[in-house]
């Protein structure tokens, strides 16, 4: 079972897509150009602090708001290994799956962790924090298929006989 350990950044409820990436920066040329502005309305310094392998732990309704797929792409580009939240907004959820950004739903973790804590995630099994284990549910099969293909683009390339 895939397992990884990392440091967490803790955010609140209703982290919307305009916080993740404000519209002002949406017409920049590339995702890389946009990443410095991630989370800027809320925590302008955060994008520079996040290191590859870090994880985000948040409250309910993470990614609510617009359909901008830059939101999960930027989080992924920052090197965030996964986002663990009490719940995710629908479009953000689909966009993340389609881009291979791992999302995990968990009710209890956010209240238990402090920013800078270390957690260990065992995919489709549990999250370990300070010796405490938090169970996580596994994804439906159709989503597992997209992720295992490496995202929707790769799945479509396969469909078109390219890979």
């Amino acid at each position, binding site marked *: 079972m895939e397992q990884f350990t990392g440091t967490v950044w803790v955010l609140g409820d209703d982290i919307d897509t*305009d916080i993740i990436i404000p519209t002002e920066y949406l017409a920049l040329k590339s995702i890389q150009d946009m990443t410095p502005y991630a989370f800027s*309305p809320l925590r302008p310094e955060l994008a520079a602090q996040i290191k590859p392998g870090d994880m985000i732990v948040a409250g309910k309704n993470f990614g609510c708001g617009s359909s901008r797929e830059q939101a999960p792409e930027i989080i992924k580009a920052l090197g965030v290994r996964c986002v663990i939240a009490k719940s995710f907004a629908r479009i953000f959820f689909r966009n993340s799956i389609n881009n291979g950004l791992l999302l995990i739903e968990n009710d209890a973790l956010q209240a238990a962790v402090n920013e800078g804590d270390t957690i260990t995630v065992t995919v489709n099994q549990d999250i370990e924090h300070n010796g405490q284990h938090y169970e996580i549910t596994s994804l439906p099969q159709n989503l597992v298929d997209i992720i295992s293909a490496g995202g929707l683009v790769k799945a479509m390339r396969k469909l078109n006989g390219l890979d």
Partner: protein
Amino acid sequence: MGSTIIEKIIARNIGAECVKPGQIVTVNVDRVMIHDIFIPFVADKFEEMGFTKLWDADKVVLIYDHLVPASQLDDARHFRKGNEFAAKYGMKHVHRSDGICHQLMTEAGYVKPGNIVFGTDSHTTTYGCVGAFSSGIGYTEMASILGTGTMWVRVPETIKVHITGKLAANVTSKDIILTLIGDLGADGATYKALEFSGDTVENMTIASRMTMANMAIEAGAKCALFTPDEKTAEYCEMELTEAESSLVGDADAVYCKEIYYKAEDFVPVLACPSQVDNIKPVRALAGTEIDQVFIGSCTNGRLEDLMAAAEILKDKQVAPFVKLIVTPASRKVYREAVENGTMEILAKAGAMITHPGCGLCCGRTGGILTDGERVVATNNRNFLGRMGTSKVEIFLASPKTAAASAVAGKIVEG
């Protein structure tokens, strides 16, 4: 056992007798909408996926609205990419300055009752106003639909909202949907469909229904649905088939939740900073000083909205040092408002009237604010930093509340 509206639409689309919430099905898409912000990404992904032609060029609509008029150096690149993509793949439906995508999709007749429509914008839920299942998706999924014409969906549970009675004169459908979002919470309908019924919504114009369907996403909903009726038929310039007019939630359909409202109980409300579900009565905030008012967007930039504002602004002036920005939802709306004298009233009152487009609602231009400023706006989102710095306070309201507040220079009821 009966079905909800969304279950009927999906079942018919896939040729099944019925479908149940939780089922994952692949639907045939009737129409898609792509807007200017995302077209470069859709185009790149489409080709990266290895597609060489659109599944059906007639079903694809490209609309420039977020970047019209261009306000940053790279904006024009989106138009160029869009124009190239449209030419290369033979797209016929391209709107380059006709208004906001969601307004155009229904107004220009691209969406009909019972259709399944996806758009690269979260407010694609709007088309539920004519009884279509429509929802927002990202650019990667859009690219895959352009190639395949299909999309997987999970049949959603439905929340039914019954509203009966007559609204007070200063209450609009915006107040209803804001109240509902406040009651449900910003994630109260996540993954679910909203279904509206009752004589209050039956008596509403399509424009008013559009306001409600538009904002369903702010409660997290996948879609929002109204039963097609005579008004829908007139609006869509068609006669409803039996299948279309039977898009009613059955009496024995299963709903995950049912909510009942009396129209008389609604009062003018505001969504306060910085969440759409932070709802308070206008009365509770009356007297709060404001710097700017914005009337427009796919939520409330239609003729009836401008007319409601004009009724309040007639022979009055916007308060000194307060700006009123009016951005009609479409070219058609603009022209109708010119023709019936609405624009003249608004301009006389001191409104700055811009070209139809997303304007301030998408926060790139059109009235951006700075630290310590307050705006009353008729659009759909008041997120932190949406219209400028994170120290701008955005209050969402109906056009009536907005217009009255512009005259007073502070928050007041319409």
